[in-house]
């Protein structure tokens, strides 16, 4: 971009408005662009007051938006994060005045300024933390403003379908959810999801851009996972994973961090091919998977202990603790194989198996564990308590884990 001054900046905005060029408008409002730096140089210490001559120089609210823009870039240049955020809030609010009265052509600009708002809120929170102040107030404020954008999108009843502001709904929701997760106010997400459900005339999710779909599904998966709706969580993570762009490795990693343990519970183990592509997940999950395959309870428990901190942070500790059952099943199946798949195996053999696997329990508890495995459908048969004998079905003795109809039901 050649050298420009504020008057020319106004002309560029007017031009973008006239041609309804959303991406161009987005670029003009980005604080990091080259033209921003030029405008900073033009005004030494800009204030709202010093711009009063420009008010009314173009269609409202764009005169004020342009002024706000200069205030934002000036604060950014001086590294005043909190002030920059406050001015950006003003800019966004002014933008809403225009946005809510027009069709969705401005969506690229909306997305862009909301991202900037969120990033500036992040910086402002960081600055506050360094000063020892509360550290999430700015992000919470950003989330409130982004929620207003959501309302402005969802209430569009006048624009033609193809140009509806509703095409911004899922992207904006993605931004809001991300902000809520960042400030750990996850419970607030429910209001947004409810608002989506209450608006059946939003176009179906599948007709939105893929990046909107994948981000939304990731957060929906997370919310379902955290409220222990594992069936829904697995569905959403699966759709997010298979829809995710191949190049977005870190996002794939993020999705798989949760999808893999949910799949393990269903008896679908990640292949070596999959884990090889994500060494971090290989480090985290391969020991669990190896222990499940072998039935090595000791190895499983040691891994659970070793990874405890990490798993707790990711909210995954309980999930992996549940999957320990699969390891016990693996052990009992090994005992059965070593007994030449006999249909009659003394309880004492399972007891020995548990001892070898590091689980030093009395005989009664071994019997109890076998009973539980039978009750839970992991193995088919019954126990003759008097004879201390486990009588096993001679077909489908250990049903394939992947064949269980409702694997999450008993968790």
């Amino acid at each position, binding site marked *: 971009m050649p050298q420009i001054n504020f008057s020319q900046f106004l002309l560029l905005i007017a031009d973008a408005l006239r041609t309804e060029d959303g991406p161009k408008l987005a670029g003009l409002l980005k604080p990091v662009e080259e033209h921003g730096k030029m405008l900073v140089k033009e005004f030494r210490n800009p204030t709202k007051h010093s711009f009063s001559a420009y008010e009314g120089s173009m269609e409202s609210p764009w005169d004020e938006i342009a002024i706000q823009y200069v205030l934002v870039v000036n604060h950014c240049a001086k590294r005043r994060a909190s002030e920059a955020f406050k001015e950006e809030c003003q800019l966004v609010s002014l933008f809403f005045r225009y946005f809510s009265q027009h069709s969705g052509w401005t969506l690229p600009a909306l997305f862009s300024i909301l991202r900037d708002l969120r990033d500036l809120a992040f910086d402002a929170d960081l600055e506050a933390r360094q000063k020892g102040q509360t550290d999430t107030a700015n992000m919470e404020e950003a989330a409130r403003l982004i929620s207003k954008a959501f309302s402005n999108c969802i209430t569009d009843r006048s624009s033609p379908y193809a140009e509806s502001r509703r095409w911004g709904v899922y992207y904006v929701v993605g931004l809001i959810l991300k902000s809520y997760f960042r400030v750990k106010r996850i419970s607030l997400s429910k209001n947004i999801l409810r608002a989506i459900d209450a608006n059946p005339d939003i176009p179906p999710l599948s007709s939105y851009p893929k*990046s909107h779909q994948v981000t939304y599904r990731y957060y929906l998966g997370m919310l379902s996972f955290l409220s222990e709706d594992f069936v829904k969580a697995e569905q959403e993570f699966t759709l997010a994973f298979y829809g995710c762009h191949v190049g977005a490795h870190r996002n794939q990693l*993020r999705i798989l961090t949760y999808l893999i343990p949910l799949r393990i519970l269903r008896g679908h183990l*990640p292949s070596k*091919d999959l884990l090889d592509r994500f060494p971090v997940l290989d480090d985290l999950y391969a020991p669990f998977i190896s222990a499940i*395959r072998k039935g090595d309870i000791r190895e499983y428990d040691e891994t659970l202990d070793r990874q405890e901190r990490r798993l707790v942070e990711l909210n995954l500790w309980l999930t992996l603790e549940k999957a320990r059952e699969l390891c016990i099943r693996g052990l009992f199946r*090994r005992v059965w194989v*070593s*007994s030449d798949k006999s249909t009659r195996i003394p309880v004492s053999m399972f007891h020995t198996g548990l001892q070898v696997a590091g689980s030093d329990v009395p005989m009664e508890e071994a019997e109890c564990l076998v009973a539980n495995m039978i009750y839970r459908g992991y193995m088919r048969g019954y126990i003759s308590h008097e004879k201390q004998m486990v009588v096993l079905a001679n077909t489908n003795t250990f049903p394939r884990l992947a064949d269980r109809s409702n694997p999450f039901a008993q968790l």
Partner: protein
Amino acid sequence: MSSQPGAQQPTVEESEKKVIKTLEEDDEFEDFPEDTKWTNESNPQLSSANLWEEDWDDDDNQDDFSKKLRDELKKSQKLSN
């Protein structure tokens, strides 16, 4: 290469730290770059490869744990017979 005994193989603790760090850095779902080209076909890398195993129960394991288990079960079988 260093001849110190610890240098050749990262200790469990070190690899642990590595995992923790990498996952923490990725703490958030990232914005997709705006210029990302999305196609309507499903991800070829994902559909071509077999990513999940459903049939993984096997009857012949040669790892140390399985061998030890077999040996101990044989011993205890003999005792009970």
